[in-house]
């Protein structure tokens, strides 16, 4: 295996970023966040940095931008060079000309009211008289010049992200670090961000470094991969080789692309050194090893018309959201649907399709402006959120919004205590042990990690013992392991729960968990189908701006009539074929 990492001491003028033996400990921290890290990216490279939580990814970003050690004081040992400049002897503002940084919660990085003001902010601060030309140039290059007078809060998530990139590029740095571009965006917008980064890399020779959990993006766009663990570099390899290390990646809680997982599982004898990492490679590879469509693949299971009792019914519901120009934005119009016991509904659609409003309406927080809504046969219009609470519970996308007490334990007990029920204590104990929160019970929810916060918010939702559980983006911004954990939890939650409704961008969640999908598009409910129906209808999902999980595209690409919804399902259906082939091969080799 070739290892790109150079031995310490070698100096290469071509390096965009070069870190040798960097060690840094935040003041008061128990352990070092950078622990002898070596890291090197060539000029013009497109590198992905991967690693589990706490592996030192964000500290690496802060070291490269000079925030460590100039802003976060502490001792930085070793050498950190950005475009040939030692960060220790430079300053954060000088480094800003060499490296631009877009962080994961990019919304908080935007400090000015409009796109234009945001873009001229840095050049103006540094006294460039040509700030207007600079900003115009960047906005034109990024294709958002037409948005220049828009207010930040009028932008979609994707547009905000591009604005943050524009601001980071306003001083024309040669290196850009983007922390998890896909975390807060729907797949469609995430794709456009990656396309933009690719363009900057190829046309303008910018060096791009991304921190990324989703290896499918890494496979599609990056050229090499750095794996970090415990503040150290484990290895730095070309992308195909890196992602083929399936077992090692999984040991670091990283999941390779679905095609790679499938190829790895099929390769029982571990004969291959390298697996396919992209969809196209996967299709060719699987064709070559002889995977064919399963024989009984043609029939489509009818969509599961749930027979359960109707929990929630929408009857011609309309809602208009107030806007700055007083015209109002129609979120949806004449929407009718019903949710029955036994449903596991996923509501999908791009950013701003009205998914959150749809969910909140079920809690009584948002009242419909037209039409009627009923909860178990009773009109919801007259019910306050306090009244619906015993039957419906809503779990926010941002768990922080649910932490209203000083610690997790009180938060979970809040609902039952407010109602003075006698099960408060017992239920809280039970939920905490079921969701593995016992060790965290005395901590403030805000200070937990993303995965822990999600578990805590789920426990709060369940503490209301609802019939109908509503979850807003339960897997957003989670690393892959926490994501799997959350999906696993959804499988077995709540004895009182009769139906679960999830609003999500996460198509793997839809494919693996839901039994019914509602597609919202331009304020209309355009489809109410089962996941397999949805994903077998490629014309449909692509025109609604959705993206299918890779395994779906893989099975469709192989000519299967009915798409496999998860790698496991794919393997189940394909395996019979493969064993036949394997047997034939064996016979031949004897």
């Amino acid at each position, binding site marked *: 295996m070739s290892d790109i990492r150079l031995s310490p001491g070698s100096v290469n003028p071509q390096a965009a970023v070069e870190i040798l033996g960097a060690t840094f400990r935040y003041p008061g921290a128990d352990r070092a966040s950078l622990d002898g890290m070596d890291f090197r990216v060539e000029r013009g490279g497109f590198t992905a940095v991967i690693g589990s939580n706490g592996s030192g990814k964000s500290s690496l970003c*802060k070291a490269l*931008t000079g*925030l460590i050690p100039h*802003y976060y004081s502490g001792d930085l040992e070793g050498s950190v060079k950005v475009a040939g400049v030692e960060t220790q002897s430079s300053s*954060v*503002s000088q*480094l*800003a000309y060499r490296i631009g*940084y877009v*962080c994961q*919660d990019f919304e*908080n*990085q*935007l*400090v*000015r*009211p409009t796109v234009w*003001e945001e873009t001229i*902010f*840095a050049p*103006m*601060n*540094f*006294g460039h*008289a040509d*700030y207007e030309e600079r900003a115009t140039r960047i906005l034109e290059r990024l294709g958002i010049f037409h948005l220049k007078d828009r*207010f*930040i*809060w009028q932008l979609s998530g994707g547009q905000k992200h591009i604005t943050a990139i524009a*601001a980071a590029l306003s001083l024309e740095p040669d290196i850009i670090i983007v922390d998890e571009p896909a975390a807060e965006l729907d797949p469609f917008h995430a794709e456009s961000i990656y396309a933009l980064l690719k363009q900057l890399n190829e046309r303008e020779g910018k060096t791009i470094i991304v921190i990324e959990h989703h290896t499918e993006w890494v496979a599609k766009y990056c050229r090499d991969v750095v794996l970090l663990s415990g503040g150290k570099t484990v290895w730095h390899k070309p992308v195909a080789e890196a992602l083929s290390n399936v077992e090692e990646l999984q040991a670091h809680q990283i999941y390779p692309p679905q095609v790679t997982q499938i190829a790895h599982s099929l390769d029982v004898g571990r004969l291959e050194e390298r697996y396919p990492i992209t969809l196209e490679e996967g299709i060719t590879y699987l064709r070559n090893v002889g995977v064919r469509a399963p024989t009984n693949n043609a029939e489509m299971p009818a969509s599961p018309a749930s027979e359960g009792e109707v929990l929630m019914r929408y009857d011609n519901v309309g809602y208009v959201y*107030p*806007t*700055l120009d007083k015209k109002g934005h129609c979120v949806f119009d004449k929407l009718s649907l019903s949710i029955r016991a036994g449903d596991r509904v996923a509501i999908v659609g791009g950013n701003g399709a009205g998914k959150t409003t749809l969910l909140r309406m079920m*809690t009584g*927080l948002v*009242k419909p402006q037209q039409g009627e809504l009923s909860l178990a046969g009773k009109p919801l219009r*007259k019910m*306050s*959120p*306090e009244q619906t*609470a015993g039957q419906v*519970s*809503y779990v*926010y996308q*941002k768990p*922080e*919004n*649910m*932490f*209203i007490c000083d610690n997790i334990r009180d938060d979970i007990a*809040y*609902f039952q205590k*407010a*109602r003075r029920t006698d099960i408060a204590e017992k239920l809280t104990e039970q939920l905490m042990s079921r969701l593995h929160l016992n060790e965290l019970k005395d901590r*403030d929810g*805000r200070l937990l990690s993303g995965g822990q916060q999600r578990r805590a918010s789920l426990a*709060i939702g369940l503490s*209301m013992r609802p019939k109908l559980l509503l979850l807003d983006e339960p897997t957003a911004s989670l690393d892959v392991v926490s994501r799997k954990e959350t999906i696993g939890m959804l499988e077995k939650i709540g004895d009182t729960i009769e139906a679960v409704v999830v609003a999500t961008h996460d198509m793997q969640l839809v494919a693996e968990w839901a039994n019914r999908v509602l597609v919202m598009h331009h304020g209309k409910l355009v489809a109410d189908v089962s996941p397999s129906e949805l994903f077998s209808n490629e014309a449909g999902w692509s025109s609604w701006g959705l993206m299918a999980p890779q395994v779906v595209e893989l099975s469709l690409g192989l000519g299967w009539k009915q798409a496999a919804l998860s790698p496991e399902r794919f393997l189940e259906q394909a395996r019979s074929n493969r064993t036949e082939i394997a047997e034939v091969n064996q016979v031949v080799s004897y």
Partner: protein
Amino acid sequence: MSLIERWMSRFSLEQLKMTLWRTAYGNKDTFLSRLDPRVLLIWYVFFTVSPWFFYDRTVLVALFAVSLTLALTSRVSGLILFLMGVSTFMNLVYIGVLALFLGGSGDAFLALITLTLKLLIMGLASVAVFTSIDPEKLSDALLALRLPAPFSFGISYGYRMIPILVEQYQDVFASYRMRGCPPARKGILSWRIGYYFCKICVLAFYPTLLNTAKRVRTTVEALEMRGFTYTLVSGDARRLKLSRMSIRPIDGIFCGLSILYVAAAVWAGHQLAL
């Protein structure tokens, strides 16, 4: 539903947020917004201080007419005018009662009305000016008038933060409602329900502030990387911002006419008094 519950469900923070935004950013084509922000600020100071030097009601009425006209042409939001209207009305009622109670004649009432008139001139002028001047221009103007840079940045950043804060507050408030339990007995005039809402209104501030504080960490890092601290020392940004402001003839005409108008009002006041 009780009256208070109905009122609570109708009053939406969403609407309040929109009103604030419109007041801050929504009026780009009113007359006052065409003026240079520095001139406008100086004019505003003059116009709010000068009423206190006049006791002549004719002058005050003339000034009141100007500020009312400006407020009406600046498309001030209905909510703000309504609140002002209510407070003025209450003020008048209280003055009337006070005058009666003190056994005073119409004179006492008139004297107190003069005070209300002055306050009203100030209020309307403030509303008109701050509706027309957007926070960006205001912050630049303050910078030009030699106020410290962090202060003027704070104003524009504050406006940028308002929608975020309101949204955050709204979410936390909803959390309290979705998990809370209003009192079973409503009490006289539903006072218990009122108390319940007031209590969560206050409680919701704490998580809001903690959540916001957490988010601001990223903001502070971003400011650092984009030269905010640098420019506080070097003053480059101030220089560039000043160079994009200019005083035009319209500013001069506006100031000139204002002075002439006040002079004419003073003269007219004298004529009437004689």
